């Protein structure tokens, strides 16, 4: 199936990132390998989005390095669903068609219909994407990312503006996608969701990597006080 060499693991080596004088990531070292979903957790502003974008290659570290197993600076089948996805000025179906074309895949109406159907937007194929509700846009962004047939799928709070039913639907898609062999790397604030989906947890606070461990261990026996307090719903700064 996978016609290109795998880019996994993605290795962060002492990655630091800052905007102006504000440090956003501080000396983060970690490895994201194949396997069940890696879930990023941490308080608001802890650096989850920044870390995801860096793993995607959208940001360059100020110091340290990000390396991929395939080394070469080639087009990778990585896809990203942003916390605030941007809808292109065209219909829902054409947003998918656009992603298919960008990924070099055939513009097959059946594929587009199936992708829209899978996120529950089958009836809205011809609606201008910018007219969709926030939750519908988030689901369209997921379908658009899946259209790349990714090896790694980055998701930044993919259910943040979804109702309970849509959340369940998206979680099912994520679980199915992971089972099909796609590496999921996602950020979420939803503890229940992290429990349901995560294989491992990466816990960030204040730009530092505090924990990377199997989800079962993290939830029962976190190593740091910050994580313990975070799980107890206390403010962590």
């Amino acid at each position, binding site marked *: 199936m996978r016609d290109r060499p795998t880019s996994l693991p993605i290795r962060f080596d002492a990655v630091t990132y800052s905007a102006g004088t504000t440090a956003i990531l501080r000396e983060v070292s970690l490895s994201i390998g194949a396997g069940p979903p890696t879930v990023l957790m941490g308080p608001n502003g802890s650096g989850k989005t920044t870390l995801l974008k860096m793993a995607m*290659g959208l940001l360059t570290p100020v110091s340290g390095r990000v390396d991929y197993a395939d080394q070469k600076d080639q*087009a990778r089948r990585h896809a990203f669903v*942003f916390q605030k996805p941007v809808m292109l000025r065209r219909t829902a179906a054409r947003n998918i068609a656009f992603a298919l074309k960008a990924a070099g895949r055939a513009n097959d109406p059946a594929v587009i219909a199936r992708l829209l159907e899978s996120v529950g937007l089958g009836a809205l194929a011809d609606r201008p994407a910018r007219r969709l509700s926030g939750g519908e846009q988030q689901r369209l962004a997921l379908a658009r990312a899946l259209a790349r047939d990714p090896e790694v799928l980055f998701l930044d709070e993919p259910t943040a503006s979804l109702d309970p039913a849509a959340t369940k639907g998206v979680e099912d898609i994520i679980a199915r996608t992971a089972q099909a062999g796609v590496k999921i790397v996602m950020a979420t604030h939803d503890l229940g969701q992290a429990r349901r989906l995560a294989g491992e947890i990466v816990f960030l606070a204040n730009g530092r990597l505090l924990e990377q461990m199997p989800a079962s261990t993290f939830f029962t026996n976190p190593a740091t006080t910050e994580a313990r307090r975070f799980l107890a719903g206390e403010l962590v700064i």
Partner: protein
Amino acid sequence: MSALELIVSGDARLFAIVGLSLIVTLSATFFAAVIGMPLGALIALTRFPGRNALIVILNGCMGLPPVVVGLGVFLLLSRSGPLGELGILFTPQAMIIAQAVLIGPIIAALTRQVIEDLWAEYRDELVAMDLSRTSRVATLLWDARFSLMTILLAGFGRAAAEVGAVMIVGGNIDGFTRVMTTTIALETSKGNLALAIGLGLVLISIILLINAMAWAVRGWAERHAG
């Protein structure tokens, strides 16, 4: 004859003047857009030394006085000028060039701003989709199409309304380079107010009509593609 009579009777002279005005201004808008839009997009998407200075100059050129542009093009095209060989001074071609020079900077400067803003919004998404450089530009231009259309209208309006540039490089020659604005100026100074008013009404109607058509197209397209 009253202004209204002139229009209703379909005066041939009046039609020739209106026709030439449209040809000159539409051609100028076309050439200014063909050069100005890609140029604006290019400046929006590239970083090079002196970029900020270029943007300031370009933005400043939006306010070029038509008579100054006319004078510049006149010097360029006059017999002893660098392009004098062409021998097109006092022809409609010269008027098209002058108007294109007048509105080129407007189209380029506004396109630069629109594309730069849209790029800030689209950057992560388009880079994540691995789009090639040319596809990025094409996507941005397409998704900015409604704003770009408004920019075209602004350019068209400015060119249609100016009198100084076409007067200087066209010479306002009867039956050859006389357009609506130069005729209005001339007829008013001769005291022939009926023709002047008639042409003024026609000029305003044409600009309104073109804007109304653009508005309709935009409304239709937005309903279908957002």
